[in-house]
């Protein structure tokens, strides 16, 4: 094994790339959970976004259009979850699982003819002056546009929840749907909007996997990224800034283990591949062992069905 092959500048740059899909999915899911809805279908929406984005990008040659349609596909798919849980009052855990199964099936059906094809990926966007800085320039300021968009979404979500009236209503719906309903807020509409935002973000995240990170379509390519995004929301105790930290930490672990594999570590490749999942479990244990704090952070009505009796 030759560790000197690992270039620290490239390492940081690739951490940003590998963290972006999870970051997008996690920030969307955080908004959904803030509104009191637990959508376990992130994996299904991500992989649907991945396949739709890939198909559109290949047929039009425009990766950005792929991202837009992937976001729309994610939103439409999440709407099916929204209608089932909010209108038909189904169990959110079971419906979310169903959404994942539907998404996995749908994506492999749609993606079959596109397996192994190559697509045009997003160009690197060199930010003038900043990207010419030594070391830091290559690390942070020479990425494709989606990396910056994902960071922009994180800041926008943070500001939306903290400073706007609409953000306050969304949080109120998540903390106590009965009170929000009594005040005249449309609980179900707010939740449906949040669910669709989450779906769109997951779709973007999936498309980033198939259009930039890999860039190829393979069946089941999200490989649990959606579930990891869910874990990151818990890790972040429902705060936008910490979602960013969590996603980048996780991206770091993934990239590091890939680099170790590439550096010629032959023994136990499988043990390295399982490390991101094991570390996620460890982090979850660490977060939840601090029970008193973490139970206060979760939105009070998370996962509960709302049925207006009056």
């Amino acid at each position, binding site marked *: 094994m030759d560790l000197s092959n690992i270039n620290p500048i490239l390492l940081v740059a690739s951490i940003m790339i590998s963290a972006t899909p999870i970051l997008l999915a996690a920030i969307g899911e955080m908004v959904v959970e803030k509104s009191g809805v637990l959508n376990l279908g992130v994996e299904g929406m991500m992989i649907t976004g991945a396949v739709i984005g890939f198909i559109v990008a290949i047929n039009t040659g425009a990766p950005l259009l792929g991202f837009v349609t992937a976001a729309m596909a994610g939103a439409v798919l999440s709407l099916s979850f929204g209608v089932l849980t909010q209108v038909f009052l189904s169990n959110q855990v079971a419906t979310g699982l169903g959404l994942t199964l539907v998404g996995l099936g749908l994506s492999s059906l749609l993606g079959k003819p596109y397996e192994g094809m190559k697509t045009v990926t997003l160009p690197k966007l060199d930010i003038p002056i900043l990207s010419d800085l030594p070391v830091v320039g290559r690390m942070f300021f020479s990425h494709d546009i989606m990396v910056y968009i994902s960071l922009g979404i994180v800041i926008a979500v943070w500001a939306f929840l903290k400073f706007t009236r609409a953000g306050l209503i969304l949080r109120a719906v998540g903390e106590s749907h009965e009170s929000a309903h009594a005040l005249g807020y449309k609980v179900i509409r707010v939740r449906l909007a949040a669910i669709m935002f989450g779906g769109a973000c997951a779709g973007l995240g999936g498309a980033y996997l198939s259009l930039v990170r890999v860039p190829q379509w393979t069946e089941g390519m999200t490989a649990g990224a959606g579930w990891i995004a869910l874990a990151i929301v818990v890790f972040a105790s429902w705060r936008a800034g910490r979602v960013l930290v969590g996603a980048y930490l996780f991206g770091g672990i993934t990239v590091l283990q890939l680099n170790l594999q590439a550096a010629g570590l032959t023994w136990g490749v499988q*043990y390295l*591949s399982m490390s991101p999942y*094991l570390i996620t479990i460890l982090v979850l244990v660490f977060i939840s062992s601090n029970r008193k704090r973490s139970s206060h952070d979760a939105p009070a009505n998370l996962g509960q069905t709302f049925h207006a009796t009056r």
Partner: protein
Amino acid sequence: MIRLEKRPQPSKAWTVATPILAVILTMIFGGIMFGLIGTSPFEAIRTIFWDPLFDPTFAAFSRPQLLVKAGPLILIAIGLSIGFRAGIWNIGAEGQYIMGAIFGAGAGLALYPMESVLILPLMILAGALGGWAWAMIPALLKVKFGTNEILVSLMLVYVAENLLASVSSGILRNPEGMGFPGSRNLAQWSSSQNLELIPNTGMHLGVLTAFIAVILAYVLLTRHIQGFNIRLTGEAPRAAKFAGVSPARTVLFCLGLAGALAGMAGLFEVTGPAGQITIDFGSGYGFTAIIVAFLGRLHPVGILLAGLLMALTYIGGELAQLMLGVPGASIQLFQGMLLFFLLGVDVLTNYRVRFGSGEVRA
């Protein structure tokens, strides 16, 4: 204006009717889906649901397959349903299934080439133990630290898949396999083989165990205090606490039972239909079993029927792949849709649909 009004008690009639309604809706929308991908809807539905059982050329082969596929699904779903009843969401049955197979096969292969009638029972025990131990990880973490069992059990599926890849090209690899990954064939070693009990029926030891599990689960849920406690925990957690039901013990029991059953299902599969530990041994039974559990209304008898139906879609799906060139993934989508429709129409069980506005007029 259509309104929903909560029923004081879930409707008995709709509890039975909703799964049937969901199957019909899935057939309609599945038919539309097949139409969109260029297959005749009627032919596709007939190939999936009718031909495996009644077509003169295929039925002889596919009827036994029905039990072979339904066995593990039922066995896993029974375990999951008991947890779901208590509000404990173990969705990592796929991992427990894989670990059961690894443990069981490992225990057997350690004794190879000894011949003894005790080897298969030992392997079954080891398989159950492997699945149980794997499920104890989320259970203990939940009890000790309050960690979410959904995420932990699911993460462990990916860990188990990597372990499977590791052992099938490492410690359990067939020394006479010319370097190819994969263990010795357990179905060809007389001490470990899990043969059909009645020829040409597909009825092997695992299917028998699944049927016994259905009966025991029924007894547990309707006649035993532990089953009552489980139902109480799921339906009224506060009442359960006041009644002295320990939440920790319920978690350990439910996850442990589901893990042990999934582990046994894995062991029966590896000694019978699959034959050996290979990288692609995990076949998704652990995930499909979630659909089976819900389709069966978390009721043992319902799960028995749902398992058979789901097995039919597997076999019919393979047949449709072969005969009509339908992509294999469309069956996965079909099964997912079934769960979706079921959850959607379930509203009729718990709510009454009322027409007209609910406003009070002076």
